[in-house]
């Protein structure tokens, strides 16, 4: 997936003269995950910019650049280091269109690796996408495949509004797949049905998708055909595809790595029962990370939803409890 993103960024820099990348170590060293590898050498230090260690400065400067007419792609090294920039994101980036009633806009992308599963240090394993989804004025994108990562990134840079682009760390190297050259753009607000099914709806996104698909395979072996939906963008949300599936299955399991309370699964569960209560054959189940700090390497497996936990929830849903 990382390579697909590099190709997408390369493409964007080539076709959009207003595009610039900035962030800590994105240039000379190619970024902590090498997503921007080689791009400074190819496109120059004016367009691939190494910044001081200052996340609020990175986002705030990118905001100003965007208002001036550039299409900045800012990188924050890990989601756990995005919080120093939170005020810029919430109070400025997400609002300038509204506070100026379309007069000024901030078409910037904030790329942020997120999620656990590589045994990293503290603050390197967060999945707090809900914080951005709760913030009006942001689009929130989380790809799960290389083609989507590239295609959604191209859409993000071209989008007239600010986009928080969350990249699943554990998929960077592990998830592979074909990507067109140049990558084809993927629209926002269209969930992908990754697997058709009639018995149960499994909904997830980003880093959890491989495990969700594994669980679906195992369920199939048990005779349960799960429809698997990959949301791809949390804002805008393709609730239609979700509701269509639920109207057929009546049973739903939502899988999310983030903390449980007020996570995105809560939003989905609330929305599903709002619209489809009478088709539900079982409670909408949430399989989530806990309301704990993400544990470090030795206990990380206790936190991230496992295939076993997804299976247990699916079986409970099939049993109607």
């Amino acid at each position, binding site marked *: 997936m990382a390579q697909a993103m590099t190709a997408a960024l390369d493409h964007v820099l080539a076709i959009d003269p207003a595009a610039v990348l900035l962030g800590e170590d994105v240039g000379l060293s190619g970024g902590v995950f090498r997503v921007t590898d080689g791009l400074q050498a190819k496109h120059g230090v004016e367009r691939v910019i190494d910044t001081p260690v200052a996340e*609020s400065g990175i986002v705030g400067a990118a905001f*100003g650049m965007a208002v*001036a007419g550039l299409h900045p792609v800012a990188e924050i090294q890990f989601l756990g280091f995005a919080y120093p920039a939170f005020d*810029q994101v919430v109070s*400025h980036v997400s609002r300038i269109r509204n506070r100026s*009633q379309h007069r000024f806009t901030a078409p910037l992308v904030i790329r942020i690796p997120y999620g656990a599963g590589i045994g990293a240090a503290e603050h390197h394993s967060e999945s707090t996408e809900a914080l951005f989804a709760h913030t009006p004025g942001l689009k929130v994108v989380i790809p799960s495949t290389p083609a989507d990562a590239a295609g959604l990134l191209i859409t993000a840079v071209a989008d007239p509004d600010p986009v928080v682009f969350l990249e699943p760390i554990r998929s960077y190297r592990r998830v592979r797949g074909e990507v067109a050259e140049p990558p084809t753009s993927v629209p926002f607000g269209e969930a992908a049905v990754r697997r058709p099914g009639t018995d149960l709806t499994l909904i997830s996104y980003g880093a959890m998708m491989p495990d969700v698909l594994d669980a679906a395979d195992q369920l199939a072996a048990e005779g349960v055909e799960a429809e698997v939906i990959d949301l791809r963008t949390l804002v805008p949300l393709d609730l239609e595809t979700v509701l269509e599936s639920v109207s057929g299955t009546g049973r739903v399991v939502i899988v999310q790595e983030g903390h449980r309370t007020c996570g995105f699964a809560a939003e989905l569960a609330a929305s599903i029962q709002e619209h489809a209560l009478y088709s539900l054959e079982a409670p909408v189940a949430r399989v989530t990370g806990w309301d704990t700090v993400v544990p470090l390497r030795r206990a990380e497996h206790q936190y991230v939803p496992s295939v076993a936990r997804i299976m247990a929830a699916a079986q409970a849903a099939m049993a109607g409890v």
Partner: protein
Amino acid sequence: MLEILQPDGSLAGEAPFSVDETKRLYAAMVSARTYDTKGTALQKQGRLATYASFEGQEAAQVGGVSALRADDWVVATYRDAAAMWMQGYPWANLFLGRTGDERGGSPPEGVNVLPPSITVGAHMIHAVGLAWGENHLGRDRVAMTFFGDGATSEGDFHEAMNFAGVFHTPVVFLCQNNQYAISTPRHRQTASETIAQKADAYGMPGLQVDGNDLFAVGAAAAEAVTRARAGGGPTLIEAVTFRVGPHTTADDPGRYRDESEEVEWRQRDPIDRVRRYLEAAGEWTAEWNAQLEAAASAEIEVAIGQAEALEPLGPGEIFDAMFETKTPQLDRQRGILMGGPDE
């Protein structure tokens, strides 16, 4: 501290403006004072939400912007109406914002002034990004950002200054040190002797000027803008001034400072000073002044009228500027507000 125009109207250095320019800037300060007085009055009548007076800070704002080209950027705060207006932001927009209407934040095309920043500190880096972006796009525009002494304590001030230093962006940081951040006096805001000297920590020039001296501010701003435009990088200017009024109309300065301070600073009024200078040069008359005041008052009344004539955002219009195109979620929410079922 750079001082050119003395409180008694005499010069302690070279005037940076011709007499005609000086008269034009004097007129601007008179307009600003008129706006300010009306702003406070309107708030008392309940026609504005809160209002933040900048009385006493006219020279700092007008002098600062005097150095800009029409297409340069201004990124300022809730207290910088004079600076914003000088750069083309209509009085009507400023009033409109104060009534509590988002459309106040939308100046005409071509006016490169962001809506006033209400959060303290975050906007300075926007000026850095704007200047950087303009530079990147091959334009020689400069960005000037206005902020207070209190704002220098926020982390974002530091990051903005540091980015400007490292990337050598064409920005002018203009701090109006008006001695207070709400109730907190300058000496409790930072242990630094001056604010100007903070520039040193970022490898940029810092200059302290008498902020009630139109000529000193104008000269310093011109130097900084010229340098920035020529690729010489950023500058920090500390304009030492005083907030003569309350923090906002919701504030009571009697709780935290002695009235004598205000009385003392009123002696150094920035407008009076230019008046004395022009008067000594035979260029000021009471009639001219009355004309200026009358013209300003009329113009500002028109602006108030425009602002108040605008109907509030209609039902559901609060959803219209969240994105270029509304998401399905916002569409649905708008539907609920407009009386549809709560689904």
